[in-house]
C-alpha cells in the first residue's frame, strides 16, 4: 500500500457550522512527510472521531489543532487551521491563549505529582480565571463534577492525584482540562490505557461534554468511535481518505480502504 496520487477526500469533510477548519494541512518530520494535504472541518458541539491504522497520522493531525507539535523541533506544519475566523498558525498567534481555548487529554493519564485539588486548580491559577479562593474552590468542584469524579474524591481533594486508579486519573485529567473552560477538547486515545468499565464512564462523559464543547477524539476502537461520535474521519498513511457521518462510515463506507479497515481486513 502506498500513498494515493491526487486523492480527494471522499464523503463530506466540510460542514456549515465549523468550529475548526483545516485546509491543506501538511506535516513534515524532518525529511519525512507525515500528513498530506488534509482538509477537514470540525463542527460546533460535535464529536468527531479520527480513526485509522497505527502510524496513519491521526494523532499528528490532532496535535496540530492546538499546536502541540511546536514542541517537536523537526516538525513543520504547512497549510492553515482556522479557529473562529483566525488562522492558528499565523506567526502572530501566541500558543498560550490558543491552548487555553483548545484543551487536550492525552493517551496516558498524566496528572501532575500534586494534590487532586492542585491538579484541577492549576489551569485556572495560571490563567487567572479565579478571583478568590472561593471562586477557585467552585471551579474545582464544578470541573470534578462535570468529569464525574466529584463523588469519588470530594473527601480527599488534598491527597495526591497520582494515587487514583487509572480511570480516575484520566477523568482527573479531563477535569483539569475543562477547568480552564476551553471551547474545543482534543482527546488522543483517552481510553487506551483503561479497562472496559473506566472506558464506559469516559465515553458517557464525552457524550455529556458534547453539549458544551467541540470534541475531536483519536481512537483505535471502532466501537468507541461508533458509540461516541457523530462524524468519523478515516486516515490512511497520512491522507484523509473519507469523512462521513459515523453511521454512514460504519454501514456504507464510500472508499474501499475505509471498508477494508472497518471490516478488520487490516489495521
Amino acid at each position, binding site marked *: 500500500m502506498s500513498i494515493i496520487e491526487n486523492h480527494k477526500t471522499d464523503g463530506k469533510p466540510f460542514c456549515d457550522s465549523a468550529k475548526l477548519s483545516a485546509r491543506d494541512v501538511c506535516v513534515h518530520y524532518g525529511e519525512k512527510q507525515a500528513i498530506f494535504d488534509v482538509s477537514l472541518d470540525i463542527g460546533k458541539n460535535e464529536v468527531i472521531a479520527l480513526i485509522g491504522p497505527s502510524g496513519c497520522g491521526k494523532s499528528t493531525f490532532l496535535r496540530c489543532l492546538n499546536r502541540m507539535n511546536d*514542541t517537536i523541533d523537526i516538525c513543520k506544519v504547512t497549510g492553515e487551521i482556522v479557529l473562529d475566523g483566525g488562522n492558528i498558525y499565523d506567526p502572530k498567534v501566541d500558543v498560550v491563549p490558543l491552548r487555553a481555548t483548545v484543551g*487536550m487529554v492525552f493517551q*496516558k493519564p*498524566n496528572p*501532575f505529582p500534586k494534590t487532586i485539588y492542585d491538579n484541577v486548580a492549576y489551569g485556572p491559577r*495560571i490563567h487567572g480565571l479565579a478571583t478568590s479562593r472561593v471562586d477557585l474552590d467552585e471551579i474545582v468542584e464544578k470541573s470534578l463534577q462535570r468529569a464525574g469524579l466529584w463523588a469519588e474524591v470530594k473527601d480527599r481533594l488534598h491527597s495526591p492525584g497520582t494515587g487514583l486508579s487509572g480511570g480516575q486519573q484520566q477523568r482527573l485529567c479531563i477535569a483539569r482540562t475543562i477547568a480552564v473552560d476551553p471551547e474545543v477538547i482534543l482527546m488522543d486515545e483517552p481510553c487506551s490505557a483503561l479497562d472496559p468499565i473506566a472506558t464506559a464512564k469516559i465515553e458517557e462523559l464525552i457524550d455529556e461534554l458534547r453539549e458544551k464543547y467541540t470534541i475531536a477524539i483519536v481512537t483505535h476502537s471502532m466501537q468507541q468511535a461508533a458509540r461516541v461520535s457523530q462524524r468519523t474521519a478515516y486516515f490512511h498513511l497520512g491522507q484523509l481518505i473519507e469523512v462521513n457521518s459515523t453511521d454512514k462510515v460504519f454501514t456504507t463506507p464510500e472508499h474501499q480502504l475505509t471498508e477494508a479497515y472497518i471490516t478488520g481486513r487490516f489495521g
Partner: protein
Amino acid sequence: MTNSNLTTRQKVEASMARRRASETRFRLYGMASVLFGMLCLVVLFGDIFSKGYSAFSQTVLTTEIYLDADYLEISTTSDEQALMNANYEGLVKNHFKTEMQPSGRKERRQLYSMISAGAGWQIQKEILADTSLIGQTITIDLIMDDDVDQWFKHDHGNDDGSTRLSEAQLGWLDSWVESGDLHTRFNTTFFVNGDSREPELAGIRGAMTGTFLTLLVTFLLSFPIGVAAAIYLEEFAPKNRLTEIVEININNLAAVPSITFGLLGLAIFINIFGVSRSTPLVGGLVLTLMTLPTIIISGRAAIKAVPPSIREAALGLGASKMQTVFHHVLPLALPGMLTGTIIGMAQALGETAPLLMIGMIAFVVDVPGFINDPSTVLPVQIFLWSDSPERAFTERTSGAIMVLLGFLIIMNTAAVVLRRRLERRW
C-alpha cells in the same frame, strides 16, 4: 564423533557444566574486586586513624605558678598596655628555673625548650580574663613542647632511644610523670588555633574557616549559574551546531585536569581582574569553574529524567514554557540537581592543586574573617603539614585528614538525605 543424533536437551545439558563454571568464575572476579576495594579502604582508614587519633590529645603539665606583679611590671590592672606587653614567657621560664634548679646554661636552655612557646600566652589569657589573679598563685595546665608531647604519647615506657630529649630532660619528665602532673588532655588547640610553626600550637580552625568561606563562594556562584545553564540548554536552547559545540565543551571541561583551572584563575582573576591572591574569593571563583561542568551535566540529566508527559500536560493546559519549567519540571528535577551539586561541592572540598596556583598555599596564621582575607583550606593545610619535618606534624596531618573525611561523609550523607526527602514521585 558426531553428535547429530543427540536431542537439543542432551546438547544443552552437555554444555551446562562449562556455562556454570564460567558464571561462577565471573562471580568470583566480581567478589575479588569488591574485596580488594574494601581491603584498600580498610588499610587506608586504619593507617590514617592509627596515626591521627593521637593528634586529638595534647600533653600538658599541671603547674602552680605565682603571678608576680613585680616581675610582670604591672602596677595597675587598668593599664592595658602593660597587661598586653608583660613578659609572661619570662615568668614561666623563671618559675621553672627556680623549681627545677637546672645547672648551667645548657641545661637551662633545655628546660625552657620543654615548655611550649604558647605557655606565656596561656598565662596572658588567664590574666586578661581576670586581672584580680595578679599577685596570686594559680594552677594551670601548661602546654608542653611537641618533643615532650611525642615522647609522652609514644615513647614513654618503651624508650628505644629515638627521642630527641636529653638525659637531663628525661630526668625532669620522669619526676613530673611520677607526681602525676604530666598528663594528656583533649587537644582543643587543634580546633581553635590557626596554623603555626610550633606543632603543639598549630590548629585547623583557619583552614576550616577558609574551606567554609571558599565553599560558600563556590556554592553561591556555581549553583545558580549551573542550574540556569542546565535549564537553558535542556529546555530553551535551539538544537543547532552552536549548542552542540557548547555541550561538547562542557563535557570536555569536566575532564580538564584541575590544576589547569588554577592556572586560568591565576591568569584571569588575579592578573587581569586584580582579585587579591590566597583569598577564599579567588579560591571560590576557581572552584566554581571546576564544579560548574559537574553541576550542569547532572542538572541536565535530572531535567531529562522528568517524564515528557508532565511537560505535555502543562503545555496542553496553556502554561507558557517558563511556567512549565518552573512549576513542574524544576521541582521534579531538583533532587537530582542538588545531588549533583553536593557531589560537585565535595569534589571542591577535597581539591588542592588549583588552589596552589592561586597562592592558597601561603603560611597563614590568622583565621580569615571574610572572603577577602588571606587564608588556606583543609586539603592544602594537609599538604603543608605533610611536608613538615616535625614528628608532631605527621599526626596532625592524619588528624586533619580525619576531619576532612568527616566533612566529606557528612556532605555525601546530606546528599542522600536531601534526595530522599525531596523526591516526590507519589
